[in-house]
């Protein structure tokens, strides 16, 4: 910006018919926006925060965007000197601000995930989004994905019913609704295909929990006995302990 010309109170206002190469304030401002977004994608990649927004299937977009936007920033800067530089106007400045504010939101706020508030507004999972088959549900270690899949097809539901009385261990966050009793909570995970916007809910009812021990959105590991009752799955807890939020808080379909 050292050679930016300021005339008539404006940035980068050029004199007519100038042939000297000068910084174009508008192009530099564009480079700032591109650079801010490039930095945001590098930040998501380095800190692992991309997992808070995307599934494993789509996380490749983050490094791709980081590299492309970095190259675009450098290219924009390299071509920002012009014999006809343009001044930065109020409108352009407004666009710059509007495009940088989301970068601040993504990078400045503490890392968090979709919580129990959305669990009440989102659709339950569809069985067809899982690779789990009734055969998978009937044998092997049960996961929350198996349980969710079993809640949506009659064959898998019957397969899960055959596992009644077995001991399971699930990790999820605590969600409560108006009808949830004091010694219960819904152990919940979101299932994501591409990004959090398409998240659907997978949950089991955990009973026999010490009232008041866990708050909503606390991440816990529950071990207990599973009792599938129709489409509802109940886990009679033998132990419930707080755990840190997993690096990948969402299950991938």
């Amino acid at each position, binding site marked *: 910006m050292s050679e930016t010309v300021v005339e008539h109170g404006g940035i980068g206002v050029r004199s007519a018919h100038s042939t000297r190469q000068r910084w174009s304030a508008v192009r530099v401002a564009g480079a700032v926006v591109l650079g801010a977004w490039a930095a945001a994608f590098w930040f998501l990649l380095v800190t692992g925060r991309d997992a808070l927004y995307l599934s494993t299937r789509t996380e490749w977009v983050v490094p791709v965007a980081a590299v492309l936007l970095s190259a675009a920033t450098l290219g924009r800067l390299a071509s920002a000197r012009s014999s006809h530089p343009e001044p930065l106007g109020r409108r352009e400045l407004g666009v710059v601000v509007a495009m940088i504010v989301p970068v601040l939101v993504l990078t400045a706020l503490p890392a968090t995930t979709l919580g*129990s508030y959305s669990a009440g507004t*989102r659709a*339950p999972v569809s069985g067809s989004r899982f690779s789990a088959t009734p055969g998978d549900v009937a044998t092997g270690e049960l996961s929350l994905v198996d349980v969710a899949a079993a809640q949506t097809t009659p064959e898998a539901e019957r397969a899960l019913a055959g596992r009644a009385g077995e001991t399971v261990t699930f990790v999820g966050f605590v969600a409560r609704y108006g009808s949830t009793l004091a010694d219960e909570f819904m152990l919940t995970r979101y299932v994501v*295909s591409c990004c959090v916007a398409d998240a659907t809910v997978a949950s089991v009812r955990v009973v026999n929990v010490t009232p008041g021990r866990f708050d909503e959105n606390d991440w816990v590991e529950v071990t207990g006995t599973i009792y599938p009752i129709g489409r509802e799955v109940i886990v009679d807890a033998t132990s419930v302990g707080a755990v840190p939020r997993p690096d990948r808080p969402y299950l991938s379909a």
Partner: protein
Amino acid sequence: MSLAAPRSRPVTTRTVLLVAAALVLAAISLRALDPQRVAWIRSYIVIFGSLLVQALPFVTLGALAAALVEVFVPIGTLERLGRLPRPLQLPAAALAGLAFPICECGSVPVARRLAQRGLKPSAAVTFMLAAPVVNPVVIASTFVAYRARPSTWTMVGGRFALGMLVAIAVGWVIGNRSVDELLKPNPEDVHERHLPVERPEARWRRFFSHLGNDFLFMGRYLILGVTIAAAIQTFLPASALTSVAGVPVVSIVVMMVLAAALSLCSESDAFVAASFVQFGPAAQLAFLVSGPMVDTKLLTLYAGTFRRGFVRAVVAVVFVTTLVSTLWLGVITG
């Protein structure tokens, strides 16, 4: 940076520094106050961030492809495609989407540049609408989402066929409109084309200039659309619409409106559509066909790119054609 003409009054260096200081202060305040402690704000911000983090790379890829078209495709090359017999032009443009596995956000800047480089506007629009529906990734994800159901091939084949049909119908309605009748002017492009250059600007400079311009042009409309879509996703319960699931015509309309409101990526929307088991295949198909063509974030992108009459025409034709064709499908498949 691309702007709506005419250019606004220049700002002073002091104003720029004040705005920069305000942004830094805003970042510090966000960190210190952490508004995400309020449940709905937390949901809103996570959904807003996820929509942006997923969509913006595709806008970047679209801007990259558009810049390549602008700089490396000679003027007149695409005009030759216009010499195809008219009944073949639009289906050919729609089928071209098979070669572009990009989401709907990326297809808008590509179509804009294709039209500017000589492709008939109706063909460019047909390509823009068809590409996010008929591309191989979307076909595969639709198959996976419905693979365990009796309606698997109805949904996969129906989405492909109706996606083509609706895109061609919009192209047909656009007819022989010129580029100027279709696209809003982008003053940055106009400015650059009319510069009194002493010698031709290097290709790489033009490439990066167009790449940046398209990203900035599309990016701001995407942010506006995502801001609205995230609010809808945060506050609209999925159960609110299920009471009309059994009503034939209304259920289809509701699913189209829902698709527009949710603004999902076309590569993932089949999984969400499949979760609305209360709705029949016709309504789910309407969700899958109209969603990648008309949704909240796309409408802001369209509004920034195309003239108002075009946006109205797209919305009307997409909705009517999707409604009629899915109703017929419902009748045929029972």
